[in-house]
């Protein structure tokens, strides 16, 4: 049973999330000549030397691996933009800054396959890591505020990878709260005067009041 409910929350693997992100569009500058590609996903190209064109990320990476193009990192991946985002993340306690839904995966793919195309890569990389840490810290602190009354939790601007990482824990926690909440009424008639100062008792009472 435990194993079953566990797998039920691990919906997507990290690879699958990356797969989804690989369909995001990105600009490349080819250094070769190639006709238009009529893919199922749409038409891309024609590819001409030094003429920038937009393609899905997977296509960009495939061409890059063969040395056929340069990838232009998206605008938000510049030192300047990321510094702004990082500062804003640090300043606001609760809010998350708006970054592309797949920022973790996109940046990871570019770091892996297109290092030489990213200006100031060390800066960018460390900024990305800082942003990720700050955001995760925020996620963690906001998790502490959950209680049994929550029948739904709303989050803004969390990215795909972040959702996927917290999902198993959050979904299980919320479900457990709900289960416990349902059990409480049986002891309802007994006024909770027992002076137990434990966290759990306090939480239980809060659920009761929430009714």
């Amino acid at each position, binding site marked *: 049973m435990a194993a079953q409910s566990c797998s039920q929350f691990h919906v997507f693997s990290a690879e699958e999330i990356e797969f989804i992100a690989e369909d995001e569009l990105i600009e490349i500058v080819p250094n070769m000549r190639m006709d238009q590609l009529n893919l199922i996903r749409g038409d891309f190209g024609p590819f001409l030397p030094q003429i920038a064109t937009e393609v899905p990320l997977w296509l960009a990476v495939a061409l890059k691996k063969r040395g056929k193009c340069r990838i232009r990192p998206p605008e938000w991946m510049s030192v300047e933009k990321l510094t702004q985002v990082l500062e804003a993340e640090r300043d606001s306690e609760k809010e998350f800054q708006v970054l*592309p839904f797949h920022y973790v995966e996109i940046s990871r793919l570019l770091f892996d396959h297109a290092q030489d195309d990213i200006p100031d890569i060390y800066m960018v990389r460390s900024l990305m890591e800082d942003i990720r840490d700050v955001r995760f810290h925020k996620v963690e602190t906001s998790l502490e505020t959950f209680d049994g009354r929550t029948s739904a939790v709303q989050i803004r601007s969390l990215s795909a990878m972040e959702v996927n990482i917290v999902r198993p824990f959050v979904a299980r926690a919320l479900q457990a709260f709900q289960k416990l909440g349902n059990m409480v009424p049986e002891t309802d008639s007994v006024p909770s005067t027992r002076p137990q100062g434990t966290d759990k008792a306090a939480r239980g009472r809060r659920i009761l009041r*929430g009714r």
Partner: protein
Amino acid sequence: MASGSSGPTEDLGTLTDVEPLKRAWRNEKAAPEILRYETHLIYRVSKQIELLEGTVDDFTEDGVDPLMISLYQMDLDRIQFLLRSYLRIRLQKIEKYMFHLLLKKQEFHEKLSKEEKAFVQRCAEDMKKHLDESVLSHLPKNYQSILKQFTTVEEDDAEVDDMVPEPPLDTFVVCIAREYVGPSEFQDSSDSLAMDLPLEMEPGDLSFIPYRRIKKLLESRKVDLV
């Protein structure tokens, strides 16, 4: 939210069948129960795959630039992965909930494809036969039902089928709003205790929420699962 290019829902791909297929795949993967089979979409996609497979073969014969061929092949592989994974998840769910699906006539007819219907029936028959032969036939008479823990002779209909696994609709899922969703559009959760906070979602907003509450919204395509 200024997520024009960043949101997973809106992209250039809306013109082709790739985004809808990806959406169907994600929803199917994240939903605890089986969703409606995307008959037309799947038909179109498999036709396109066939077509592209033909094109790639022709290219190989014509000696087109191997780079181009490999790129087409990659595109083909990606979409085939989506399609296979989509169908596979559905089969897994069907295997898990076959008796439930057979009991719920409406769900059975609306949600499954022709092939899947045949599969449920065969699967359930085999499972029943297997359980009958290995266990049930050795039990006392009123414990032999595959659907119930035990049966009493008199009132057969009154009992619930308590040995049928059902999809856990109260599972929490993560959903993203495609358009504005007002507080009244959410289903109430079944559990009376939890206070359903008034909830509204702007396009692009994410929520952890019990599946039951957004089931209808998912069907009307106002939200997607992530």
